[in-house]
C-alpha cells in the first residue's frame, strides 16, 4: 500500500475501503452460481421444455423450488457486483453514474424479488393434477 490514501481521503477520492468485501462476495456468489446454475442448465437439458405441466411440476418440487430461490439470490447478487464494475469503469460523469447505479440496484433487487415471487407462486400454485389424478 502506498501512502497516498490520506490526501485522497481528504479530497474524498480515497479508497472506499469496500474493495476486499466486494472481491470476496463476488467469489462466494461465483461458487454459488457454479453449483446452482450448473444444476439449472443440467435440468434444462433434461426437461421437456415445451410441456408446461412437466416444467411446472419440476419447479414446484420443494427441493427444486428451494434451489431455484437460492439460484436467484446468488445470480442476482453476483450480477449486481459484476455490472457495478462495468458501470464504474465505463460510465463517467457523477450524475449519469449515480443514475446507472440506481438503475442497477432496481434491476438487481427488483429482478431477484420478482424471480423469488414467481418461484413461490409456482411452488404454491393450486396443484396441477398429474396423470392418474392427485
Amino acid at each position, binding site marked *: 500500500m502506498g501512502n497516498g490514501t490520506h490526501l485522497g481521503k481528504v479530497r474524498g477520492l480515497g479508497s472506499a475501503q469496500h474493495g476486499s468485501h466486494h472481491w470476496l462476495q463476488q*467469489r462466494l456468489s*461465483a461458487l454459488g452460481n*457454479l453449483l446452482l*446454475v450448473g444444476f439449472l*442448465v443440467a435440468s434444462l*437439458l433434461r426437461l421437456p*421444455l*415445451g410441456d*408446461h*405441466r412437466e*416444467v*411446472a411440476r419440476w*419447479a414446484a418440487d420443494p427441493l427444486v423450488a428451494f434451489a*431455484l430461490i437460492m439460484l436467484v439470490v446468488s*445470480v*442476482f447478487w453476483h*450480477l449486481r457486483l*459484476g*455490472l457495478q464494475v*462495468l458501470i464504474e469503469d465505463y460510465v463517467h460523469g457523477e450524475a449519469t453514474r449515480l443514475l446507472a447505479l440506481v438503475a442497477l440496484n432496481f434491476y438487481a433487487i427488483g*429482478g431477484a424479488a*420478482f*424471480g423469488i415471487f*414467481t*418461484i413461490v*407462486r*409456482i411452488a404454491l*400454485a393450486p396443484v396441477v393434477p398429474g396423470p392418474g389424478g392427485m
Partner: protein
Amino acid sequence: MTVSILHRISGDGLAIVGASMFLWWLYAIAAGPEAYAAFVAIVWKDPSPEITLVHQVTNILGKVVLVGLTWAFFQHLFSGLRHFVLDAGAGYELKTNKLWSAVVIAAGLFATAATWLFILWGNLNG
C-alpha cells in the same frame, strides 16, 4: 487479455439478457399454460399453421440468443474457474497463462457446440 475481455462481455450478457430471459421464463411458468405456450411460441417455435411474420423473426432470434447465452455461460464458467486458479496465486507464468487462456476459449466453444448437438439430437429423436 482476450479472455479477460470475453469474461466481461459474457458476464454482462448473462447478467442482462440471460437473467431477463430466465425471469421471463419463470413468469411464463407461474402465469399458466397459455402464458407458457405464448412464451414458447415467441422464443422457440410457434406451432400454429400460419406463423405471423413477427414470430418467424423471433423464432430465429430466440435461437440465436439461446446459442449466444449458452456460449456466454460456458465462457464465463471456464474463465471464472481460471480466475479461481489465478486467485490462488498459480498460473502467472507467461507460457502457462497463455496456454490456459487458449484452453478456456476452446473449451467454451466446444461445450457450446456439444450442448447444441445434444439438443438437436434430442429433437430429432423425439
